[in-house]
């Protein structure tokens, strides 16, 4: 008798929950694994909104324009057909959430309100105050709870996935995971597996990511033979607040609602911001990019801020930061539109941004790279799919703000549908017990190795050093000599980790053990990121090398594909980019593009 199709989804953020819902709707069984209770996933941190060209402002917006902004924002490194499909689907994705009861901010007429975001001139971003990711995640969490009550989705919260299990034919037949309470190692059989495990920002130590965003799960896929795409493309968000444990995001929506970025014209000026007359302020983004102003894409804004602060030496009250200023706007309006973000600033900085300009600086935020997938979201391992931030497909060399949520949900849908189809077609085949036992044994051996370590190193100190190394050498400005040095440091960190005894050998809720397993995986991904950056001798999107300041389409209009070997990543650059829908152009934000909204123009009147 054929098995009933069974799919495992790893990760309970937006992408994972969306995939699980699609599969449950089709009638297959879903096992949903998540490190944290799914309602506590990192998607809650997304603030500003979700993009979709619903065109409610008479601006002549369309999914086609959303597509153009997205591929241009990504500096033409994304394959274009799936980006077009995502932009086409975006309005219906917003409507789906609307039907699920997401409390989107409304217009006077009771319609969904849209605001502006970076890299576009259209009002295209639906939002629920400034905690949109949280609200979208809650909507899916609620729907999943309904399927759980019906017995169609089984949650395994407090489980961490380590290795997908691959049978002799190369097909994925399940995975091996660990229960974070009793440390049980168990293999789960299935006909398809979807990874939706989010980003890897924790590799960089300080940034806007949550604690669980280590990338360890996808490193496990990479170690098992999955190809990792575009690892070197890491987004640095221009506006985060300093903190000793985390650099907390101040959403791009702050600028979307009218926030202005400036520094005192005199680099040595230490006066309080509101005592500095307008003529002595430098609104450097507005000056250099008159067309997009403060809403240039994130890579552009971060590089400018880096230049102003690190190269030209401007300071705000002595700090290495710039002002993000809302004080010219109505406080009640700000509370309504941005309350959730302003609350974070107040709680952690002790100042009210309605009254005092915020001090912000760039911080590691997002990985454009991730597991390589085809247009059906399947990795190079048949039966193993990926969706959300953990795959590489939609954002090219730089992601536009508010495109993450739509990509997560769209990727979740596409992976869900295709994993179901795959699972149904393969449900008659045996889920190889040998393959499941092999990954089980692999994890057990690794755990025993970690538990048995002796020496004078501290695993938590090594993690701090990893963050410092990656943050210093592999972020906004990249130089080949530094990248080589960083890669050497990574090799050394891994060796030292092998001499780090565990401070806890206990059999119950052993977070130290998990920490070391994750950290080894993080170092593997770090080498792919660093070497990918070293090899790509051009500047494109978030990847910037002063020695190679221009985009080089002739040589580098190619995906970076990294494969794991025990001696470090192996690279393949044979994949060229499908630019069949929009010819790559020079990426400019200082002048208006052809498709800029023209109030009162023919386009606006017709739509």
């Amino acid at each position, binding site marked *: 008798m054929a098995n009933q199709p069974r799919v495992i989804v790893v990760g309970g953020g937006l992408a994972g929950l969306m995939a699980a819902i699609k599969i449950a709707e089709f009638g297959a069984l879903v096992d949903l694994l998540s490190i944290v209770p799914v309602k*506590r996933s990192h998607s809650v941190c997304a603030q500003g909104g979700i993009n979709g060209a619903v065109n409610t402002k008479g601006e002549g917006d369309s999914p086609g324009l959303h597509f153009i902004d997205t591929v241009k924002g990504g500096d033409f490194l994304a394959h274009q057909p799936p980006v077009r499909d995502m932009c086409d689907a975006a309005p219906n994705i917003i409507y789906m959430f*609307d039907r699920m*009861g997401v409390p989107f901010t409304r217009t006077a007429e009771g319609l969904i309100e849209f605001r502006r975001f970076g890299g576009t001139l259209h009002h295209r971003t639906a939002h629920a105050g400034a905690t949109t990711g949280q609200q979208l995640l809650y909507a899916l969490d609620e729907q999943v709870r309904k399927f759980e009550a019906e017995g169609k989705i089984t949650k395994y919260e407090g489980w961490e996935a380590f290795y997908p299990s691959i049978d002799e034919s190369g097909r994925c037949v399940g995975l091996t995971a660990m229960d974070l309470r009793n440390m049980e190692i168990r293999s789960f059989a299935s006909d398809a597996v979807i990874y939706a495990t989010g980003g890897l920002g924790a590799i960089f130590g300080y940034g806007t990511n949550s604690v669980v965003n280590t990338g360890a799960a996808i490193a496990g896929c990479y170690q098992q033979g999955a190809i990792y795409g575009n690892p070197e493309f890491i987004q640095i968000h221009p506006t985060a607040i*300093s903190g000793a444990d985390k650099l907390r995001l101040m959403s791009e929506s702050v600028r979307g609602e009218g926030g202005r970025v400036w520094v005192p014209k005199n680099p040595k000026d230490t006066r309080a911001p509101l005592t500095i007359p307008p003529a002595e302020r430098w609104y450097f983004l507005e000056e250099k990019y008159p067309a997009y102003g403060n809403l240039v894409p994130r890579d552009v804004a971060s590089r400018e801020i880096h230049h102003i602060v690190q190269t030209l030496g401007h300071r705000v009250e002595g700090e290495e930061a710039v002002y993000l200023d809302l004080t010219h706007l109505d406080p009640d309006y700000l509370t309504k539109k941005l309350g959730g973000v302003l609350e974070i600033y107040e709680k*952690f900085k002790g100042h009210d941004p309605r009254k005092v300009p915020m001090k912000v600086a760039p911080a590691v935020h997002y990985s454009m790279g991730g597991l390589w997938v085809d247009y059906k979201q399947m990795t190079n391992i048949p039966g193993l799919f990926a969706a959300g931030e953990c795959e590489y497909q939609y954002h090219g060399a730089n992601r536009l703000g508010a495109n993450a949520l739509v990509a997560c949900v769209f990727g979740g849908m596409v992976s869900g549908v295709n994993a179901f189809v795959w699972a149904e077609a393969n449900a008659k085949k045996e889920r190889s017990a040998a393959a499941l036992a092999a990954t089980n044994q692999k994890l057990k051996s690794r755990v025993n190795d970690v538990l048995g370590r002796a020496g004078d190193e501290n695993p*938590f100190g090594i993690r701090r050093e990893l963050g410092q190394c990656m943050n210093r050498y592999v972020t906004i400005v990249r130089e080949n000599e530094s990248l080589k040095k960083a890669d050497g440091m990574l090799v050394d960190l891994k060796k030292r980790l092998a001499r780090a005894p565990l401070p806890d050998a206990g059999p119950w809720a052993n977070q*130290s053990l998990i920490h070391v397993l994750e950290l080894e995986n993080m170092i593997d991904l770090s080498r792919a990121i660093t070497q990918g950056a070293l090899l790509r001798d051009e500047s494109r999107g978030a990847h910037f090398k002063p020695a190679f300041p221009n985009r080089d389409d002739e040589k580098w209009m190619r995906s970076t594909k990294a494969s794991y070997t025990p001696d470090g990543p192996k690279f393949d650059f044979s994949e060229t980019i499908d630019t069949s829908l929009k010819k790559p152009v020079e990426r400019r934000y200082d002048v208006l593009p052809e498709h800029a909204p023209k109030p009162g123009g023919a386009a606006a009147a017709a739509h």
Partner: protein
Amino acid sequence: MESHGHSTNAPISVRVMRRDNPDATPRYEVFQIPHRQNMNVHMCLLEIQENPVTVEGTKTTPVAWDVNCLEEVCGSCTMIINGRARQACSTLVDTLEKPITIEPMTKFTVLRDLQVDRSRMFEDLKKTKSWVPIDGTHALGAGPRYAQDDQLVSYTLSRCMTCGCCVEACPQYGPGSAFIGPAVLSQVRRFNMHPTGKLNKGERLETVMGSGGITDCGSAQVCASVCPKEIPLLDSIAVVARDTTIHALTSWFGK
């Protein structure tokens, strides 16, 4: 892009309730931790993790705790800090009396140290059908129109992160009681006010009319004051209480 926040302030004394597993007897351990600028309680636990040695110089294990977003939107790091349930990420050390005492929440099973099992709250959201019933995730057009004022109420209620501060403070809630607590009752209000969610209003109200429901609220009125998101929980309880009364009357007369 990183800050280490060195500080010349005196070290902080932190007292942590330890428990190796759910059946173990709790004990306290005291740690001396270097002060850093802008330090939160989460950072105290990170310091102990890297250097797990008590004030007496005894080597111990790192403290186990749950944490994720670090910006008070996920609810993970809720614990009792100086006697009050709150999030370790948004509780700044400089605002606290010293020594700082950190304990796990008391209304849930302790898994280890500061980790607790709050799955009961999620189970209660299931019982109360806390979702909007939709026909499917395929394209079915826009949702219902919604007035700005209604959106504001709904959004305020929808910011509940199921952290459990309200049930920790509630004298009626606990392992020996079936009471579902303020957070879940507030979600009943939220879904009952949604144009589509309303379609299950009767079922939701009947669930909270039974044992463990609205009548178990003892009106201690402490829940709203401890909510980190300032959700008007007392209003929600009042609305659900009124709706259950009306529902009881109308369904009785309707028979």
